[in-house]
Every structure is written in C-alpha cells, then in structure tokens.
C-alpha cells in the first residue's frame, strides 16, 4: 500500500508516517523543507521495509501544486492514501495582532488545502479510487474565543470535506475528516495542555485505523467527540462568558 503525507516530518504527520511505515507501507513524504523531509525519510527507512521518497510541496504556493500532483502520480503510479496534516497555526492573539499572517493562514488552511484536495480528487478518481484523509480540527466545530480565525479556516475545511465525501464516496473516493482535539506536538508546545490532551502516537494509531476502515469523521482522542457535543449545544450566552 502506498501512502503520501503532506506535513510528514512534523507532529501528527511524523507519528502517522511511523505507524504506516511499521506496517510496511511505501511512503511519499511531502512538505516545504526538503532537508527536513530527508531526515524523516532516514528515520522511516530504519523503521519500515517499504520505500520512502520525498517531494517538495509548499502549502503557501499553489502555483507549485500541479507539479506536485504530477510527481505524486508520475507514470500512472498508484497512491492509495493521501493524507494532509500540514496547516498553519496561530493563537487568536497572534492572528489579531497581524492581519497579514491571518490572511496567509486562512489562504493556506482553506483555499490552498481545498485546491490540493480538488487536484487529488481528480487523480484518485482517475486511478479508480483511493482515500483522502485531511486533518481539520475541533476548533472548527464552534465559534470560540481562543480560536476564532484558526477555527474559521477549519470550519470551512470540515464543511468542504463532508460534502466531498457525500458526493464521491460511491465513485470510490473515500474522504476522511480528522478532528484532533488538543494534541501535544511542536505546534502546541508552549500552550498549556487542557484536560484530555492527546499524544501524537495514540492519535496516529487511531487515524491509521480510520484510513483502513474508511471512517468519514474521526474525533481524536475519542473523548473530544463528547466534549465537542457538549460545546456545540451550549447556549450563546454561556459561550460568551467562558474563555474556552
């Protein structure tokens, strides 16, 4: 089985690449920093038996996307799973202080991510089907004070992924929307972990299982499904008062 991961050298992408490598997948690592991807490739070659290749892909430069999809499916090569974990992150305070950074985040996390998904959709359907697994976030489930702008990008993405799954699953394109809660990675380092914070390895194992089963929506760690169910049903006057 061949799995391609955009954002493979960091955080949950790194953890997922390791899980898939240890079960023997061939891997394609995509990301901005090719040197860093090569270091991850070395790590994965020791861990797994499959091949590991590297393709440069920057979520901020959509002009490069056609070349990326071409390299990914070069010569009619089959890709079984395409996973996108890459995204920008910023705290609400940071993004409010820097509107340009906010625009870059919204562009990369929403418009550019959807463009990659659209290009992948065409290629995956052309090869007869495949799985597209994209990391959204619980931050997109409700308008909350600490994640207003970041959450907006993820709300839009979750929305798109649900529609994609409804429209194309029958044709063989399985879309998986992963909504991680707080996971202790480099992205969240420095933030105070809330209760129910998850470890990347455990999240990666759950995501890998969701890919195997074609689960359309995954909250991880699973307790976050319950947490978000409560939060989604809190009345507005309560949401206005709490800082969560």
């Amino acid at each position, binding site marked *: 089985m061949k799995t391609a991961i955009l954002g493979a050298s960091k*955080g949950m992408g*790194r953890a997922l690449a390791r899980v898939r490598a240890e079960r023997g997948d061939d891997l394609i690592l995509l990301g901005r920093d090719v040197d860093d991807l090569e270091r991850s490739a*070395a*790590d994965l070659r020791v*861990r797994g038996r499959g091949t590991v290749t590297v393709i440069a892909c920057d979520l901020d430069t959509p002009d490069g996307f056609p070349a990326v999809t071409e390299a990914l499916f070069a010569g009619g090569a089959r890709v079984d799973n395409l996973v996108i974990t890459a995204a920008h992150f910023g705290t609400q305070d940071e993004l409010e202080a820097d509107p340009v950074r906010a625009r870059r985040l919204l562009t990369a996390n929403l418009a550019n991510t959807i463009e990659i998904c659209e290009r992948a959709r065409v290629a995956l359907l052309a090869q007869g089907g495949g799985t597209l697994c994209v990391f959204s976030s619980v931050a997109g489930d409700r308008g909350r004070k600490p994640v207003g702008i970041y959450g907006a990008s993820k709300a839009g993405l979750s929305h798109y992924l649900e529609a994609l799954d409804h429209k194309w699953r029958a044709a063989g394109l399985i879309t998986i929307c992963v909504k991680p809660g707080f996971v202790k990675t*480099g992205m969240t*380092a*420095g933030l105070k972990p809330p209760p129910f914070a998850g470890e990347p390895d455990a999240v990666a194992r759950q995501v890998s299982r969701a890919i195997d089963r074609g689960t359309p929506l995954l909250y991880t760690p699973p307790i976050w499904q319950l947490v978000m169910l409560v939060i989604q049903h809190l009345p507005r006057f309560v949401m206005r008062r709490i800082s969560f």
Partner: protein
Amino acid sequence: MSLPASRSISGWGLFALPGRERQSEELEAASETAELSRGLGRSYGDSSLPATPESELLCTTLADRILGFDEASGLLTGEAGLALHEIHRLLMPRGWFAPVTPGTQFVTLGGMVASDIHGKNHHKEGCFGDHVTRLRMRLATGEVVTCGPDERADLFWATVGGMGLTGHILEVTFRMVRIPSPWIYQESRRVPDIESFIAGLKESGPDWPMTMGWIDCVSGGSALGRGILMRGRWAEPSEAPARFPAMPPRVTMPFFFPSWALNPLSVRAFNILFYWKHLAREKRGIVSPWGFFYPLDAIHLWNRMYGRRGFTQYQCVLPESAGQGAARRFLELLVKLGGASFLCVIKDCGAEGRGLLSFPKPGISIALDLPLRDWTQRAVNELNAFVIEEGGRIYLTKDTLTLPEDFAKMEPRLAAFDEARRRFDPERRLRSHQSERLLDPATKEEA
C-alpha cells in the same frame, strides 16, 4: 516564538524549581536561546533544572528521529531526544542492543551522553561515552560543530559526562552491539555479608558481562551488607525461547504515597522481604531482559512512592585504594543513619570514564534512595565526609544536596572542566541549578 510560561520543573526525584521549558522538534533553531537542554528528566536532582525562574530550558523529546542505522557496523545516529526504549523496541527484534544501558530505558541519547551513563556491564564495557563516535552540538557561542574522539577531542571528552554544560547536544552517533538472542541467562544468589558480596562481584567479573547486586541496607552486625548478587549474559538462541520477550504492561503508580508510609518499620520489612523472597540460595535460568535491566520501569511514576516531598539518590564510588573495608564502613554509617532506603544497589566499576567529569572509577559503587526530609541534608553531609575521606566521589546525575566545598574535595578534575567551560562557553551562558550550586557557587552569591 514567544517565551514559554514559567512553571514548575522537576527531575525524577520530584525536587521542583520554577523555570521556562521550550519543547521543539527543531533543536538546532531552538537551542539558540536556551540555557540548557534536557531530555526525559530522569536525573534525580537538579542536573536538568533551571538555574533561575527566568531560565529557559530546551526539552528535546520531540526531536526523536533516527537519522541513520548501518546494519553492517551497528552505527546509529539519532537526534538528541531519541529515547532508548524506542531504539530497543525497533532494533532488539533485529538483534541489536545498546552497548551500555542505565537502569531505566526512559532516557534520551542526549541525556545518556551528558551523564555518561554506566550500567551492569561497566566492568567490561565502560561508560556510554566510550561507544560514542560523533556528536553534533550547538555551542554557547552559537556555532554548530561536530566532535568525537578523533575530532575536537577536547570538546568531546568535556561533553561526555559534562552535564550539558559545554553545549547543546543535537545528534549522537554510537555503536549498537549484536546480541545472540533478546533473552538473558541469569544466575542470582543470596549473599550473607558485604565481604562475600564484593568477592562475588570480583570473581564474576571476568566471565560475566553483566553483574550487580541489591543490598539489604537496614541489617547490621554479621548480616551487614547481605543481599542478592546477580550476574547475567545474553542467552544463546539454543537455550532461549524463540519468541520476542513481551514488554510487561506498565502499571501506573496512581497517587503519591503519604509521607508516613515510608517509615523505619516499612523500610525494614521491605528489605527483609526482598532478601528472603529469594528463598533458594541460588537460582539460574532464562529471564526477560526487561526485568533484568529495567525492573522499576514496570511501574510508571514509581517515584511517587516517596511522597510529594520527593527524594534524592545518593550514589558514590569507593575507589580500590580505599580497600576492602571501605564498603563495610560505608554500610555501617548507613545503618547508623537510619537507613531509610528501600534497598541499595551495589556494582563494581571498571576503568575510569574518559569524560572530564565521568562518574565511574575502579572500585565499588553504591546507590541508595533517600527521601527528602528534614534530616536528609545532614545525612548527605555525613556520607560525603566519609566518601571524601576514602578518596571516592559522587554521581552528579543523582545529586540534589551535596555542598560545593564537599564536591570540590572529591573532584580533582574540576579545574580541567572549568577550563573547558571557559573555552567553549566563555560567557557562561549554559548553566543548570546544579552547576550554579556545585560548580559556580561564587557567581550565584554575587547574583
């Protein structure tokens, strides 16, 4: 990136200090501003704790990639935060093991170098640093350099056992060893007193790659220093089970023991039980490597056993020059002090570590836990006075309470280490609470 918030940071002994800790996957970038790198925090005292509440530490555990492994030579390169248990999980099934391992596998490569850790095979294989071929480091001056026994050897041997004070370790290359099977052939026997114990260790040394013992540290008189002597070697495939030894499920110590749980009676009972649990005078057979090397790893957060106030470990080496009687006199002192330790570990050391501050030297090493209570400082002072008298020294990785003047008396190598720090960190940007306490007490008072 903004400065991480100040919070309480502690080592394995739970002695805690306020400071700032940054976690990063990219050590090279993140090490520019940090005062010290730390890994999994298994050193007992203040070796990896912040010098001041404003001090910024770099936690390396997210930088955990294997950057290369050569199945022909066994050479492995890993990022500093790569943990030993992960290396073993991946490579033991393929017939490889670390050349030297401490009593826990929840340690990082960077920490293993900084402490120049030793293990049950010290009498044959020396310290971990003896098996390291290359380090990649960020110096306090900002430079990123590589060093090894043949390249910038002065920096290398100052860093091995240098407690992270000569630069941030970014990558470590060392040689793994081939093992015939992942199982251990072990012989263990009850030993009646300290003299037979030392004789047993010495006699086992030449033929057994791994030796150590547990001592009952409350019984005095003719039973002084009685305990269980263990020796082991890797099992041959013909005598070992074909399956891979399953790592025991880790149970978590769910809460802190109340401080009264640890009292002379419970300690005494534990020591006596441990001795007599080994009912047969002698046992031999195939055992799991996990129980053999890492008996305490089976209990996650076992350090809570000593209560919220935490504990420290006292580990010293009594040199051969101190003679046979030194260990007996040490244990007599220990029994007199009340011996509030659950067991103590004894091991004979081989050649002196080559790192400027490496702990081991030829002689007998004794390690014991001491709960942090009002009397602990006095006990450590008394033990230190004895160790100084006998020409021994203590292990920095375990230490919380040693006084700077005592440490100076144990460490004739201190001046050479100080000179190395002056060369590689002229502005003294790298520091820990321990370095301020033991190596630079004067500057601390000025500040």
